[in-house]
């Protein structure tokens, strides 16, 4: 049976999610607004690195996102050989899917009741 492109992407997103969940901590900051910023900052830079695009390194916060992104991009490439076979536009689409899934698991679908606490 032939696997559709959509199913392939879904399966690959889950593999990437599993990797992040097992080996990273940056996605679990304690408040929703922090998680939004972390997911956006690190996954955007990871996508840029995987697509060989320039990465902004203006602020100390940018550098922090970047170091996590460099490690993640390296690990993704080393763990999932299929990444090397993908076109850049497909990597972008994959990373967009990954960002949406991570936002759901850690923010919008999260059962963590402390995420919306207004103070640290």
């Amino acid at each position: 049976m032939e696997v559709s492109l959509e199913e392939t992407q879904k399966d690959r997103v889950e593999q990437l999610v599993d990797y992040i969940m097992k080996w990273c901590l940056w996605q679990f900051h304690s408040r929703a607004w922090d998680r939004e910023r972390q997911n956006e900052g690190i996954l955007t830079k990871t996508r840029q690195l995987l697509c060989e695009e320039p990465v902004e390194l203006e602020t100390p916060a940018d550098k922090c996102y970047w170091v996590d992104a460099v490690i993640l991009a390296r690990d993704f490439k080393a763990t999932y050989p299929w990444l090397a076979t993908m076109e850049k536009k497909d990597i972008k689409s994959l990373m967009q899917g990954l960002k949406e899934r991570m936002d759901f698991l850690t923010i919008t679908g999260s059962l963590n009741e402390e995420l919306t606490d207004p103070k640290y």
Partner: protein
Amino acid sequence: MPYHKFKCSECIPEREKHAVTKGPGEDLTSCLPLGYLNTIPGTISERGCAYCGAKHVIGAPMKDVIHMSHGPVGCTYDTWQTKRYISDNDNFQLKYTYATDVKEKHIIFGAEKMLKQNIIEAFQAFPYIKRMSLYQTCATALIGDDIGAVAQEVMEEMPDVDIFVCNSPGFAGPSQSGGHHKINLAWLDQKVGTFEPEITSKYVINYVGDYNIQGDTEVMVDYFKRMGIQVLSCFTGNGSYDSLRGMHRGHLNVLECARSSEYICNELRVRYGIPRLDIEGFGFKPLSESLMKVAMFFGLEKEAQAIIDEEIARWKPELDWYAKRLQGKKVCLWPGGSKLWHWANVIHEEMGVEVVSVYTKFGHQGDMEKGIARCQEGALAIDDPNELEGIEAMKTLKPDIIFTGVRPGEVAKKLRVQYLNAHAYHNGPYKGFEGWVRFARDIYNALYSPIHQLSGLDISKDEIPTEVGFLTRQMISDVNINKEETTPIEERPYTGDYDCVTKLRGKTYPRSSEPLSDAV
């Protein structure tokens, strides 16, 4: 939601939402217990109080400080710094404990006068110590003693001393974690920015959320220094009071235990613009990547890579020796907070053990998110368990070993389940490459302890085999090793020193050759 109901807690139905099983297909949107809530009456929690969390966990590792509790002597004694957070100044902070010894009469007439006298006497008894942290307790908070005002009075009379006031009585939160929160913010509000540290490198970090358990902090600081990084302060393991007042001059906050100290990192980011980078000192892969991340922030990749290569070449064969003998052993990972998630995946990946349960006594839902995300399918995750639930879980899951604290550890031993001290360690440090091997060695020694094997025999009813001689650990463990497989010659048990920390003290490091103009 895949809640798990303990038989022993059927009479406490609220407990059901505090335990979940990570079943097939479950993720964090369907599998997360409640956490960091007030303990349910009748459940006999094993948590500590908010005063304990502030003093015993966070404040007391500071090394050049008199840690004074204003309250009954029992509060002080029970938080005497017994967690093996050593220091390089002859463990001053571990040797003594100080209390105002509040009695019933003080509850009626007030204890502020006595507090002032105690503070002055303590400084006079230790004239070379000029710093104090002062902790409120339940009794003195309830009678309204103003410890801040008393501290201020003393500082005016004794201008060479400085006192930090921590207002975190025992009732100030559901668990010790409430105290972590309070002392983080109190330190930031009162002390950060009141001291200008000397900057000696272009690369300056605060190392936050490590408490130098058996030398963990010193091992990590050694790596940073070898890269040419100045570790401005350590919050709070082996940390000095004044260096922690200078945290505002750091360029990067490197955070280990988010549960105990993310608050100060988050606020340093908001107030001083210092970014927060979460790292892990446990496990070869997480540690290597963590060192590399810190290095990349400053452009020191070559320095970091040299350290990583050297350390892995030295210690990997020894980790491999143990990993081969730990494969498939079942572990209940039952620490206090952060080791739940620091260890949940990497002990499986690098040592081959199976994590069948995770629990946290005082963690928040955020800790459980990390722990559940990292542990394997089928694991039972429990928030704030009581002793009976722990016993039931051990009987059901049949683990080979428990990583936990002393109290539940002793319970485990009575059930003939081996335990390792996850809080204070058996033969740490466990951080660092060598430390990770020491951890593997401790697990191995526990699992294959000859006396543990013998203790399974009951001489009153079991037949005692007389034809078998004494079995060493390796004779027991190597039954599981495939003899057909060629063992790489370099694989070997731990060959490091009994004490791997003291030699780091007094070591000299290369100073940064970069100009310091941008550093301050």
